[in-house]
């Protein structure tokens, strides 16, 4: 997905990456405001892989200290919106 991604497309893409790392999660039942770890197994290796997937997908560098901001869906989307060029619309 090129930069300048619409908001809905970003959300769908992030969820796909999340599922590739943790395939057993139920994306319909996922509560965006909560941390992943409270809803399913999500250990440091999963965070590492999730960060690597986001890096590869969006070409954005994520320092280790920012990993905490990837641990919930809303937090992660906000973080990405700040780091990606302004989207051209939904």
């Amino acid at each position, binding site marked *: 997905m090129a930069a300048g991604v619409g908001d809905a497309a970003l959300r769908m893409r992030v969820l796909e990456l999340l599922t590739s790392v943790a395939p057993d999660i139920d994306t319909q039942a996922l509560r965006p405001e909560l941390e992943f770890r409270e809803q399913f197994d999500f250990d*440091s290796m999963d965070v590492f892989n999730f960060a690597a997937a*986001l890096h590869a997908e969006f070409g954005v560098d994520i320092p280790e200290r920012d990993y905490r901001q990837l641990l919930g869906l809303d937090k992660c989307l906000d973080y990405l919106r700040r780091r990606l060029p302004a989207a051209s619309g939904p």
Partner: protein
Amino acid sequence: MPSLGSEMESGTLVEWKIKPGDVVRRGDIVAAVETEKGIIDIESFEAGTIERLAVEPGMRVAVDTPLAWFVGAVAEAATAAVATAPVAAPAAPAPAPAVPRAAAGGGAPRRRISPAARAHAAQLGVDLDAVQGSGPAGTVTLQDVEAHARAGARVAAPAAPAPAAPSAAGRSAAMRQVIAAAMSRSKREIPHYYLQAALDFTPARDWLEAYNAARPVPERLLPAVLLIKAVARAAAEQPGFNGYYAEGRFQPSTAVHAGVAIAVRGGGLVAPAITEADRLTLAALMQALTGLVGRVRTGRMRSSEFGSATITVNSLGEEGIDLLYPIIQPPQVAIVGFGSVLERAWVVDGRVVPRAVLNVTLAADHRVTDGRDGARFLARVLRHLAAPAEL
């Protein structure tokens, strides 16, 4: 050449009883032919004058081959030959397979699951309801059960409405059996002794942060890598903690294959080995670890990875546990457990300062080593962790 039996395909002319110009009546014997059953006289079913003989004595010819021609019969014979060409034998009546149509069983049709699949599912604790059948008419086959089991916690399909909890329990039931068997054998057979030491992990953590900050996401390291490498180096250096206890005696292993306890998603634990962990660079060790966890998660474990660990490392770092008393994986003779890295009061130069404190526990087999050996081994681990750069 007449056909004298269904199994007769050809015959050899032995002798002619007639010559061109002879007048032949119906029923006259005109030749003798050699068959498997012996020499048989050939009668003429036609009357007429012989024009020429087409086959010489001693020649073997197929059934239906013209042997001689009547005067004036050439053209007609040609067509006659065609006419008498053997009619293609009717296709042997293929008996219609009378597959008895059994009455359909009453009630909701029972899912079609092969006995082998049932047996395997029971063995692996796989919940058959969650297994998608790939066989004919949705039949669940052995392969389906195996694929499902390998996929570990993977629910058949994200869209599947099945509630996560019960299938999780189903999935790990068999694994629970395997773990239960190993742990109870360990407790029964191995006289464990335990040693614990606390470590100021701050220098290692700082080193790691600097290392990762200088590298893109995929090349960064997890703390577990340092722990594994430290234990592997110690195991290589001090005998008595790396190898197997079998047939009543300790069998040391020169190579160090570090078993890494990996939680299976949805319950269960496996401890596949990273071979020659003491010799790998940290980056290589990280790659090995990532591959191992990935394979455990997708159920594509290599059998070699399972049985070969010579010592095991178990880190509960993320679970907020201070320290743990791990159980040795038989037939190994030692296991090292790491608790979480927690902010604790730590005395430095007589002053209490906050430090990232890590608790390390060793469980070892008293048939092989004693507390003193254990203490020295543990000290090596701590020394390695205090100098991450040399790991």
